[in-house]
């Protein structure tokens, strides 16, 4: 499956739809609990990571929470 991840081509060795949860694992994203994901331009709710799937040609962006405090 060929995707665009954070602006770069990425190939996932899986021809079937893959959940966002599984995709982040396959991409070896660390501290996944702090990641926000955008799929084809739409920001996903964290509760949808298991149910939302990516397919060939999809565009995925992910980034970490940016926060802090005094």
């Amino acid at each position: 499956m060929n995707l665009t991840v954070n602006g770069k081509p990425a190939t996932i060795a899986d021809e079937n739809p893959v959940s966002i949860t599984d995709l982040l694992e396959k991409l070896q994203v660390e501290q996944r609990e702090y990641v926000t994901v955008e799929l084809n331009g739409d920001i996903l709710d964290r509760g949808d990571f298991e149910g939302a799937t990516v397919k060939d040609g999809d565009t995925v962006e992910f980034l970490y929470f940016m926060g802090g405090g005094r």
Partner: protein
Amino acid sequence: MIEIPADILEKVILHSQSGFPLEACGILGGTGNAVASHYPMTNTDASNEHFMMDPKEQFAVVKALRASGEEMQVIYHSHPESPARPSQEDIRLALTPNVHHLIVSLQDRENPVAKAFRINAGVVETVEIIITV
């Protein structure tokens, strides 16, 4: 070491001061270790003690940086009433790799203090700021 143009550092400090008493936050882009662009962001926490950036704005900035051939160089935020040093929460939430963290202290509002850090896996390292013209 991080190079920040004087006008951008001034904008960061002005953004921090205009946001007072709330924490202000933003992103600086550039190439190498040189800052070239400034993106003030919304603090969705609207708090005097915390900040959290809006994910929608974050994605927009990342894409804008990519389109202009720049990378995220600095994540900045203000400390309205505490020193320019990373708090435990700052350290815990320093998750984005390969960026500098700039903190503007407004503890003395007439004399803001800006300091830069690298934070990796809980380890804080002070980074020299070179102000360029």
